[in-house]
């Protein structure tokens, strides 16, 4: 009984578990037991096989074919087919419960074919808890190369040559930062990995820390060697307990293998890493605030300069990079800066991981070369808009980013083009919105987020954002005046110009970008007291358009307070005295006859 399959990876993420409550591991164990393959085929728990839209998924290795687990029944039988002949799975008759090989191979469908995996290359292929598997996939080879064949200056040169820019949001050239940190002869120095991924809608750092923690560690070690540091910290937000656990395991294994600690690989280089769990403050993603938080203080940003490369953690030179940035480092050293530079665009090299969410068909993590246009990301990889709605806007960069429109879809996604268009790369959250989203409401949502998360240190952010929020709320309930739009814009510009740290400066971006591209929606709110997307409840008249009404009666059925009366072949009639404006009818009406 020889099987061409040596391992089966299964996804243990929340997304898959919530899609179908099937205990895939137990099923696989039972199946392999019954088939007598238990000792021959290994099971690998992975965090994500990036096919969240069709989970729970399993992947056969070698080969990497992904299959969907549809049901528990007859699983063992189908599994027999898969592991004995993985290239030609036998299809049970239609309608039967089965594992459906509906994806022939990763390379054949757009969602995977358009991606280029550098950072996510090990995702699903290795067991994140096994350092041996990481080593077998060229793990720690870059560290070995750096320590034995390169000078620290040589490492920095290679990183500079690669053109790598920080993946946390600002896009600062990493090589330049490392060079700065090396320059100062104050010791000890520190390396910090920023794993405080706070943007709503972004989860690539969590996925990386959970599925390939050693790559992050290796990047940090190389950085430590380059700048002359002996201690690293990973700051992980408290909301990511599994990431913390995976990193703890990885650090422990690396120490035991001699990759961390004293005299690493016999080269005399000492380096160690500790994990620092955050405590729930969005502002701690800002580098100086993060360092105060590690010091055990309130996480409030300070004035720069001095830059942290000169005076960072405990006043020492500190090099802080994002999780994804560090995960790129081993590949750059292994294949060379010139190779990395050949991917992507002139000013934005390499790949970027985006977390694609919102109103698209395929949601999940997407790694593409920098400069891939937004249309490819949303329509080819994302599969377009869900349902029969239309594309309206794409929000990039979380609460610090902005909304772009159809006219921007041709834009290559690079740091500078997105910034110029009024959005930003940010950490890579891509939230797609269809025509059921109201842009004023979206601006309000992000402003509310920034109000809640403002640290309170400086007035423009603490007070100014509240004023901004108040103006938006006034518009949303229908008390806005045309002059409010100019005032809104002025207020937003002031906050951006006078706030103390990057978060405050970027917080008005959602307002500014929606004002810029969706001013007509704001105009409709303040002049006609109308919300075109039918989101802002106070601006909806709750009237039935007798012409558009197809007399189906669905609205009358869903109304919780019986405010809609309907008789066959007659348009529905809405009694506004009874109506409680819950919008159940608007959601139910397929003909948009109620507004």
């Amino acid at each position: 009984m020889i099987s061409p399959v040596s391992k089966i990876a299964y996804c243990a993420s929340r997304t898959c578990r919530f899609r179908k409550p099937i205990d895939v591991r137990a099923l696989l164990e039972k199946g392999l037991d019954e088939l007598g393959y238990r000792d021959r085929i290994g099971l690998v728990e992975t965090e994500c096989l990036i096919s969240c839209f069709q989970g729970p998924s399993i992947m056969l290795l070698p080969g990497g074919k992904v299959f969907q687990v549809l049901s528990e029944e007859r699983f063992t039988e189908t599994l027999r087919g898969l592991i004995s002949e993985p290239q030609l799975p036998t299809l049970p008759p239609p309608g039967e419960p089965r594992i459906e090989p509906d994806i022939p191979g990763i390379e054949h469908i757009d969602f995977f074919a358009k991606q280029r995996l550098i950072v996510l290359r090990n995702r699903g292929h290795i067991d994140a808890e096994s350092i041996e598997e990481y080593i077998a996939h060229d793990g720690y080879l870059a560290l070995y190369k750096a320590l034995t064949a390169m000078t620290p200056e040589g490492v920095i040169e290679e990183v500079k040559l690669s053109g790598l820019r920080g993946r946390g949001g600002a896009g600062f050239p990493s090589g330049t930062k490392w060079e700065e940190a090396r320059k100062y002869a104050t010791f000890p120095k520190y390396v910090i990995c920023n794993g405080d991924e706070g943007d709503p809608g972004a989860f690539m750092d969590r996925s990386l820390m959970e599925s390939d923690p050693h790559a992050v560690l290796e990047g940090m070690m190389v950085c430590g060697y380059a700048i002359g540091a002996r201690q690293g910290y990973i700051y992980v937000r408290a909301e990511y307990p599994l990431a913390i656990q995976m990193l703890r395991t990885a650090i422990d294994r690396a120490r035991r293998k001699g990759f961390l600690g004293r005299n690493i690989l016999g080269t005399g280089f000492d380096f160690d890493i500790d994990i620092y769990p955050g405590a729930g403050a969005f502002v701690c993603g800002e580098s100086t605030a993060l360092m105060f938080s590690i010091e055990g203080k309130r996480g409030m940003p300070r004035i720069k300069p001095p830059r942290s490369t000169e005076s960072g953690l405990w006043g020492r030179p500190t090099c802080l990079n994002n999780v994804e940035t560090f995960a790129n480092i081993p590949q750059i050293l292994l294949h060379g800066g010139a190779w990395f530079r050949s991917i992507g665009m002139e000013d934005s090299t390499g790949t970027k991981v985006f977390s694609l969410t919102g109103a698209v068909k395929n949601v999940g993590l997407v790694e593409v070369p920098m400069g891939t246009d937004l249309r490819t990301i949303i329509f080819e990889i994302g599969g377009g808009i869900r349902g029969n709605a239309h594309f309206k806007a794409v929000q990039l960069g979380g609460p610090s980013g902005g909304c772009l429109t159809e006219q921007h879809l041709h834009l290559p996604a690079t740091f500078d083009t997105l910034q110029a268009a009024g959005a930003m790369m940010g950490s890579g959250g891509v939230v797609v919105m269809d025509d059921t989203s109201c842009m004023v409401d979206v601006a309000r949502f992000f402003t509310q987020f920034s109000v809640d998360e403002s640290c309170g240190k400086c007035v423009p952010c603490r007070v100014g954002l509240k004023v901004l929020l108040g103006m938006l709320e006034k518009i949303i309930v229908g008390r806005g005046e045309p002059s409010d739009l100019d005032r809104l814009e002025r207020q937003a510009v002031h906050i951006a110009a006078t706030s103390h740290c990057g978060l405050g400066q970027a917080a008005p971006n959602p307002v500014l970008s929606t004002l810029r591209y969706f001013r007509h929606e704001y105009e409709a709110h303040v002049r006609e007291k109308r919300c075109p997307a039918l989101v802002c409840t106070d601006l909806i008249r709750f009237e039935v358009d007798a012409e558009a009404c197809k007399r189906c009666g669905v609205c009358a059925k869903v109304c919780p307070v019986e405010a809609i009366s309907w008789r066959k072949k007659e348009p529905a009639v809405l009694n506004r005295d009874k109506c409680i404006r819950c919008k159940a009818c608007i959601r139910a009406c397929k003909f948009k006859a109620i507004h």
Partner: protein
Amino acid sequence: MKSGSSDVLKEFSAEQVEKLDGIIARYRGKPGGLIPVLEEAQMVLDYLPVPVQKRIADGLNLPLAQVYGVVTFYSFFTMKPRGRHTLRVCLGTACYVRGGKSIAENIVKEYKVGEGETTPDRRFTYETVRCLGACGLAPVIVVNENVHGRVKTQKLKSVLDEYQ
């Protein structure tokens, strides 16, 4: 400090207090130890009232103001005990008119808990919300992550009995 521990920390068991002291001792003298101490302490004690903060401040040789400042800054820390389950009643208009109000009144009376408070047996932390967008299911209550729709006052107890 030792003598005062029995009365200021009386809501915690001797074992919990001992664990707290153990945590403080492990981080004493380490730079930047405050937040890990608070995180571990909250795991043992569930919440961090001022007497606990005082004990941590004394143990780590920090001003109480700094400890209090950190506890109130980060959303992860709480100074009030939370229940084992979070119970949210929707008082959005649809739920309100379809009996949400009487459910809310019923909870206050039956479980002896005010809004934003926790029952004495720490079973529920009770909150009200304005609208969950599930008006078609009105009235709605949400326990932890589970949405229960069309809840009637008579059925309320049987729904909540699932959560002990």
